[in-house]
């Protein structure tokens, strides 16, 4: 493993077809998976944040 070498990431990026110039892998956010995230969102209890009580941290 060589986590200190960003070049490895650039090599990975170059294999990404939708990359315009440099930068990390850009996903295609219009792909069909969007439907399943909306389904997951619909399952969220609308009252969940009201039930979520925490104590003050730092």
């Amino acid at each position, binding site marked *: *493993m060589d*986590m*200190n*070498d*960003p*070049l490895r*990431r*650039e090599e990975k990026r170059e294999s990404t077809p939708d990359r315009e110039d*440099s*930068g*990390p*892998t*850009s*996903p*295609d*956010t219009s*792909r069909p*998976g*969007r439907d*399943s*995230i*909306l389904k*997951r*969102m*619909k399952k*969220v*209890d*609308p*009252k*969940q*944040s*009201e*039930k*979520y*009580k*925490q*104590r*003050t*941290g*730092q």
Partner: protein
Amino acid sequence: MSSIVPLMGIETEYGIIREDVETSDPVEESMALLQRCEVPSVFRAWAYKHENSHLDLRGFNVPSLAQDEEEDEFCAEDRKRPYSYWEMKCDRVLGNGARFYNDHTHPEYTTPECNSVFQLVAHDVAGERIVAECARLRNQDLGQNAVQVFKNNTDYSGHSYGTHDNFLIPRKLPFENWVQGLVPFLVTRQLYAGAGKVGSENRKGPSHTGLQLSQRADFIETILSIETMTQRPIINTRDEPHATPEKYRRLHLILGDANMSPYQTALKVGATRLVLSLIGEQKLHNPIELEDPVSAVKRVSRDKTGKVLLHRITGGTITPLEIQQVYLDQVEKHALGQCKETDWIIHEWRRTLTELEYSPEKLADRIDWAIKEKLFSEFREAEGLDWDDPWLQSLDLEYHNLDPERGLYRALEEEGNVTHLFPEAEVTEATRQPPEGTRAMIRGMMVQHEKDNIKNIHWTGVEFKKGPALDLSEVVTPADVEHMLNSKKEQFAWI
């Protein structure tokens, strides 16, 4: 490696709740979570004797640290519990050099000290995996998916818990220089570092409907303070370097958000490190001074365009985008070409600011607040909801859930809808192995090889039941690490 900022680390306090009981007890649940950790570690051996959180960087001691009245009452109740302090803290030091324990009823994962940004981000994500695995094992014991853990900073009712980014910096430059150079940068880095929050919790000021950039902005009340639970500052003044105090300070930044996007963590920590290098080398020219930085933190958070006008002490106004561009231009001039990691950060910093200005929708693949903006807007449209509908805050919370079956960011990751920074194998490696070339590597190796011989352990050293102690307070560079290991071959045959 930056000579000005040789080491960095991130502390993350996680939110925790048990859903199958009427009242979830965070003390019990945090303890149970930590007790379920199966990662090789040293348990309940943290050397608190080396800590002093009451010393202020401005040159004085405070008698005590403050917390609000509600937390005072909780703590009074905690003292009646049948547990010792050690039992409640459940301190672990892991074989990867990280610390994992309970801090103010929140499971906290503190990464090992890292000397590169990508190394640090891999360890931050490794922390998510370790915490999520503890939750899975705890739920296995309970026979149901009752315990949920969140990498966020608020319960939407005024209780905040932190994600602190830490940078080792030289002592020789006066603290005032760091403050003057950093404040406008920190006030505005939320443009790309904010995790996004639906609604607001600032009881002293105007409320906000809709999504704001930052989870933490509502809780920032002053420019400088040693406090972390009340009067939270833009720059924390706790003087606890965890290294030779004559040579180093630890800059302890508590205003940041917990990011689900590793890209965003890399950009946040990377840009901050480059600005610190600029200040440390005294290359920051014409520093901007804002008239009211504390109010600006909130104003920046509530304007997603980056174009809100902020007043300068010298007169006139400037926008958050312009402030970031001033820093970026100077960093680019000073540091471009130094190394590939630096170039990546400068390039991505530029790309992100440009997209925020001209095509902000493009940020929805890598910046948490922008991902939420797109996701929640689609959902609002589909369900006909207003921004103040409680369902939106519940979705906001679920975005940060570490459960792969429930978390919204986890779903986006699985579907390939967000920027991927690391192969999973690299993150798995970081759950097991410490970062190379750092003093955390020595700590991690000691946990892996000398676990049963460790009497106590800390950022700055290890004491053994048998054999001389290791002092890591002067071990900062990879050369220091190599020298230390070479000098200990007689004591530790496995080196």
